[in-house]
């Protein structure tokens, strides 16, 4: 490169830099406007209201839910012409991170999505979420399935309204099962037998993406429940101990499954989406996941009908001599809607939340194929069989165990998730697994 060209290059870089910096400054200006709280220009000047709504159903990965949210918002805006609703959509993990960052700077959106129990608590303690009991006292209160709103209560005040209710069945591929003459197992021994048959025939029994850690936690929670009943919940709440032999045994059982090659290869390095694709591509026979995946097996038009027809489910089998019964599920209310305490348009925000929960309850079943936290009149609508079956299971559920990482407080939840990955990777013994949990819970944060 001659000096001349170098000089040319440099001056062009300079020009470009100036142009680009111009772009980015206007860009960030726009960003900060949408990122700021629904105050300032978004407030109630001359009756116009702008509501900021942050949620986690991107058009790509949650197509059905995203469409439903857009429909509801559009309808609301037509019914309330003075209200504009600005959406911010993030994917699950990013959503959680952004929520924390916005909280630290006290710039939460007017309406947002939160999880229950331990996840919610720091936000409530930090006085960031507004209590929503008023809404519950009205007609809305009766619409919720009993027990769903309680998970969002701190000191007997409710800080978010649930919109989903989930249980986690084991989905299985009927075609793969039929190929080897397998029946959905009802007992753990039968289940182990299914695993054995599949691995002997070179099939991958279970799809799992355990980079996300909570995915493996579902397996542990079920085993803990089937062996020890409510031992896990007691240990988390402090009324029991993690050293309960049932919890150690459940951990040992996880490692036995790993030794049997029950899970797809390299699960600890795969995300849940990557793990799921093993099941969706029919490379694995089973997949344990919440009912939020139902749209993919029923209504999602992007998934071929041929595959949807192959998906069945069974309940996590019971273990001989264990205390858990087959109708107790890992699940619980999924996400709920909160209103920010410092929102300048709190009343409007609450109105929108009420509207959203009701509309979601009516249409989420038919349009998104997800189970709402409000009661569903199944007689009035045409539903996929898989969906009806799971709804019936939900009605017969003897207990719902809320996801462990949601039950626990953030620091302990982090230890739990790390320990789960270590357990599946055989980097920790079942004894140390429970010891570390107990230590984390004793710390109390």
């Amino acid at each position, binding site marked *: 490169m001659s000096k001349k060209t170098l000089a040319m290059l440099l001056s062009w870089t300079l020009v470009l830099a100036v142009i680009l910096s111009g772009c980015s400054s206007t860009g960030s200006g726009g960003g900060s406007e949408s990122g700021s709280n629904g105050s300032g220009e978004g407030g109630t000047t001359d009756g116009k209201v702008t509501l900021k709504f942050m949620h986690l159903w991107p058009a790509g990965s949650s197509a059905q839910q995203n469409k439903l949210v857009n429909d509801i918002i559009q309808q609301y805006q037509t019914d309330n012409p003075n209200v504009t609703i600005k959406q911010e959509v993030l994917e699950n993990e990013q959503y959680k991170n952004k929520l924390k960052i916005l909280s630290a700077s006290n710039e939460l959106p007017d309406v947002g999505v939160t999880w229950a129990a331990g996840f919610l608590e*720091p936000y409530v303690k930090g006085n960031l979420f507004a209590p929503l009991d008023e809404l519950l006292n009205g007609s809305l209160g009766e619409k919720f399935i009993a027990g769903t709103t309680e998970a969002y209560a701190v000191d007997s005040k409710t800080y978010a309204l649930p919109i989903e209710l989930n249980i986690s069945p084991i989905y299985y591929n009927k075609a793969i099962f039929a190929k080897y003459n397998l029946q959905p197992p009802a007992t753990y021994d039968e289940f182990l037998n299914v695993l054995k048959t599949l691995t002997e025939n070179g099939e991958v029994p279970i799809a799992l993406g355990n980079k996300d850690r909570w995915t493996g936690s579902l397996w542990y929670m079920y085993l803990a429940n089937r062996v020890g009943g409510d031992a896990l919940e007691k240990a988390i709440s402090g009324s029991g101990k993690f050293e309960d032999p049932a919890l150690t045994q459940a951990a040992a059982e996880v490692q036995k499954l790993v030794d049997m090659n029950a899970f797809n*290869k*390299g699960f600890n*390095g795969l995300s849940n989406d990557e793990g799921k694709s093993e099941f969706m591509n029919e*490379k694995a026979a089973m997949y344990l996941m919440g009912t939020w995946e139902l749209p993919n097996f029923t209504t999602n038009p992007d998934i071929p009908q041929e595959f949807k027809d192959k998906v069945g489910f069974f309940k996590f089998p019971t273990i001989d001599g264990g205390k858990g019964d087959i109708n107790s599920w890992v699940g619980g209310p999924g996400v709920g809607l909160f209103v920010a305490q410092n929102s300048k348009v709190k009343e409007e925000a609450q109105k929108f939340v009420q509207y959203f929960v009701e509309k979601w309850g009516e249409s989420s079943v038919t349009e998104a194929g997800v189970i709402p936290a409000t009661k569903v009149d199944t007689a009035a609508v045409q539903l996929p069989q898989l969906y009806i079956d799971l709804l019936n299971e939900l009605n017969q559920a003897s207990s719902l165990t809320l996801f462990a990482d949601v039950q626990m407080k*953030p620091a302990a939840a982090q230890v739990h998730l*790390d320990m789960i*990955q270590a357990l599946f990777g055989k980097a920790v013994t079942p004894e140390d697994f429970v010891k570390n949990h107990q230590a984390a819970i004793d710390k109390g944060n």
Partner: protein
Amino acid sequence: MDKVMSNRLVAALYVLPALLLLLVLVYIPIVLTGYYGLMQWDGIGAMTFIGLDNYTRLLQDSTFWQSANHTFLLALFSALSLIGYLMIALVLSGKIKGANLFRKIYLIPMLLSSVAIAQLWLKIYHPSNGVLNTFLEAIGFSNPPAWLAEPSLVLYALFVPILWQYAGFYILIYYAALKNIPESLVEAARIDGANPWQIAFRIKLPLITEVIKVTVVLAVVGSLKYFDLIYVMTDGGPNGSSEVMASYMYRQAFRSFDFGYGSAVGFFLLLICLVVTWLLRKATASKDTIEYS
């Protein structure tokens, strides 16, 4: 013009805007981080002053030291890889056919964002249908490892894309420096009968020592604070076997809601970076720099 510039007030005025920006965006946050490190704070509620507790906890935290260990390994590998980049730049700066094409090939990874690179390499490393394992199976390995799930392999598997990502950058710097050496010096050496090796190691390399020193500092300090690919590809897992200091800081602050401890890790990281930079400058300082006249 010269007169205006020599006026101290004017000079100060010119420097001020940049200085203010730097203060607000860099130095004040650094001080704040150190300050938060003295607090117990969940990032939402009230802060409690706990003195140096976070820092003493840090010194006894085996997970932190494990991640520090990984970070130092990355720094070591980055520094060593500079030798390779230098060799490539030496070859490219000579008169070889297709040098232009190769330069572009090496530079392309620099154009991609880290997340895109991470996605690309996630596909390559996928345990069952990844390019790498499909290839290994095709040439006869019956059971190739799951690269990102194997605690003993994952760190090195991550080093490959990280080093690949920055190769172009360093090669370009070396290339530019080598091209800057006056042709007359090389010509003179050639007339004196020096062979290409001698020209490379006796003439060219000594002339660009300053550049090499800078790149060593850049590579080492860059590795110490490295975060993005590791966060996207493994999130520090499995079982912390690819955790580095920056990802550990992130996990403590944003996952465990322990902003005080996270800040302490961040501040400690800054101190390490400063000390290492100082040591490197010290170690590579030479009184007589060679210049071409």
